[in-house]
């Protein structure tokens, strides 16, 4: 019932199909990602947005197969195109050689916290050299040259010196650049950036986003950008996936999402962005209620308790499926479900 919605000339480099990642702590089951599907087209940027707790980070970690216990993938497929063939990452052993080659080799990850993403007792260079040598059979010296080149390519001044410093010696912006350099050091085709700018100040944020964009143009990289910042999405992404409580509620081209949002949740999200055109002192609209606790997920459409268009008897009974509503745009809401 959930089908591919994105139509495009190019074949997707990665497609996630009905992904389910659940956590099993002692207290019960948490369905962090519950049937998410999306496609990633080569050389584009896909934005995954949602409030914190919607499962976007877990989705990213599921792709890399680094979901930590007590979580695990319980269903779905993660199909990665590799030299013409297709690998289902969900079926691989997370510890296997193959999966480890993909991690860092084919798919790089950039984290929210550049400070704590580096080991406090190893130099930055040590970690990058390690990554390079893990994926390419080169000498330490050669790996070091490559690491310096990677540093240079992300715009770190004096890379030969910086490479031998510890993360705590670098400034916040430099640290995030170093982080990106590390993720890119093995030339991955896909870069997953999980809230890459959240911990940075606004000026640095803009620089990092610029860097990502220019890298994409130069290297032809595909990016998954995970963020709760709709402004960043508008600036960066071609395609947008909106998640709520582990489910994709709406997806489509950025233009369509921003100008013609269908799902009440997406609409509410967009309304809650402060606008420069709004009346001064006008109260910013917020979404009523708060995200339900993951243990007591509402029945039916997970958004129904907060939804302004709640239809009793429909929305609290069954879960809506994704319905195509426009060119590449799909929404999971009974308002548009004509079946």
């Amino acid at each position, binding site marked *: 019932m959930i089908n591919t919605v994105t139509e495009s000339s190019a074949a997707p480099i990665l497609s996630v199909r009905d992904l389910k990642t659940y*956590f099993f702590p002692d207290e*019960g089951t948490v369905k*962090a990602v519950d049937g998410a599907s999306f496609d990633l087209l080569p050389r584009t940027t896909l934005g995954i947005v949602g409030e914190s*707790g919607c499962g976007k*980070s*877990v989705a990213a970690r599921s792709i890399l197969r680094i979901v930590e216990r007590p*979580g695990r993938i319980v269903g779905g497929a993660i199909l990665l195109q590799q030299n013409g063939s297709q690998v289902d990452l969900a079926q691989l052993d997370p510890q296997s050689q193959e999966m480890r080659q993909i991690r860092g080799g084919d798919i790089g990850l950039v984290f929210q916290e550049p400070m704590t993403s580096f080991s406090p007792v190893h130099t930055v260079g040590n970690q990058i050299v390690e990554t390079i040598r893990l994926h390419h059979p080169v000498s330490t010296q050669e790996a070091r040259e490559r690491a310096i080149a990677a540093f240079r390519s992300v715009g770190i001044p004096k890379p030969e010196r910086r490479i031998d410093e510890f993360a705590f010696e670098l400034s916040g912006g430099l640290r995030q650049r170093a982080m990106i350099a590390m993720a890119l050091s093995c030339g991955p085709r896909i870069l997953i950036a999980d809230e890459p700018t959240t911990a940075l100040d606004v000026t640095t944020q803009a620089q990092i986003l610029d860097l990502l964009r220019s890298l994409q143009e130069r290297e032809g990289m595909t990016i998954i950008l995970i963020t709760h910042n709709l402004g960043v999405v508008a600036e960066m992404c071609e395609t947008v996936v909106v998640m709520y409580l582990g489910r994709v509620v709406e997806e489509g081209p950025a233009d369509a999402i921003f100008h013609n949002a269908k799902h009440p949740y997406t609409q509410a999200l967009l309304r809650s962005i402060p606008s420069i055109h709004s009346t001064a002192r006008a109260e910013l609209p917020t979404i009523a209620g708060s*995200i339900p*606790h993951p*243990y007591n997920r509402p029945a039916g459409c997970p958004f129904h308790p907060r939804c302004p268009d709640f239809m009793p008897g429909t929305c609290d009974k069954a879960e809506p499926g994704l319905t195509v509503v426009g060119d590449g745009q799909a929404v999971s809401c009974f308002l548009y479900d004509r079946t």
Partner: protein
Amino acid sequence: MTEPTVRPGAVVDEEVALLPSVAEERISVATQWQLMWWRFKKHRLAMLSTVIVFLFYLVVVFADFLAYSDPLASEAQRSLLPPHRIHWFDEGRFAPHVYGLTGKRDPATFKRVYTPDPEKKIPVRFFARGFEYRVFGLIPMDRHLIGVEGATAEETLFLLGTDEQGRDLWSRLMYGTQTSLIIGLVGVSLSLILGVFLGGISGLYGGVLDTIIQRVIEILRSIPTIPLWMGLAAALPNDWTVIQIYFAITIIISLIGWTELARVVRGRFLSLRQEDFVMAAELCGCGQMRIIFTHLVPSFLSHIIAATTLAIPAMIISETSLSFLGLGLRPPAISWGVLLQQAQNIQALAISPWLLIPSIPVTIVILAFNFMGDGLRDAADPYGQ
């Protein structure tokens, strides 16, 4: 919803760290101490340990009642008797009794050897009369939890055997428990006073005073303590009374624990001083004393309680060690260490292994205090994590 389904601090992942609204409300109106109690209750081992500690202190209070023979009544004839078994049933009837002992002289070694005589049944009674004592030092009493009828307890009942002087180990263990646990408490109180005072000054005023106190603590922590305490304890005059020695030893061992407590108090003061609520109180014109006693102390009291609980085992071990060496409490005082001193040489131990029995309560109490302290420490900061 009767119980909050989620531990307040349980974070599975940042993605799922949200509370159900009902529990959330219950939690948000609870007082600090209620929150701590809820959290402490979850720590099963700590709860169990608290019960055990409580039981041990019951022994402290009712040692006279639980003992059945005079702990000092010695009799060479009964030297090193093995533990006595109570037979609960007599021909299918509930009638607890012990067998009387008949002494024979071994013709080869000329030692008296005692063997239980199944013919001589001595009934064991509850709430039996025995030696006299005073409840809480006031009310005269001669009832004991158990005792024997028809003979004196000193001569017939040896639940845990006897020591070299023929004194009943069970009764001595009751009194030893009393002494050792009281010393633990008194010692920790002294440490607490010292620790809170010095740690408080250090944390509150900072500056040179803080530096000096911190260095003193660091120095004390880096010196091997036992040799030093041994030196101090050995210097106590021989002609001191049991009571004097008792207090001197308590003071000596209290000198061990204060550094850790001072460290905790100082740390708390330092971190709390920066909190907004302290700033708010200052801006409202609260005096320093008021800030300390109505704002700061209540918010770290729980930490102090936890640290204090964790300091008690060290006190008990110190007393036991010193007395074991013969440098702590000296007979006729009875403590766990004094009891264990008899097990010091391997020959005695090989012939009469029951002399090691006092090590069991020592271990249990130390474990119980540790678990209890761990539970308290985890519960001490209900808003944390």
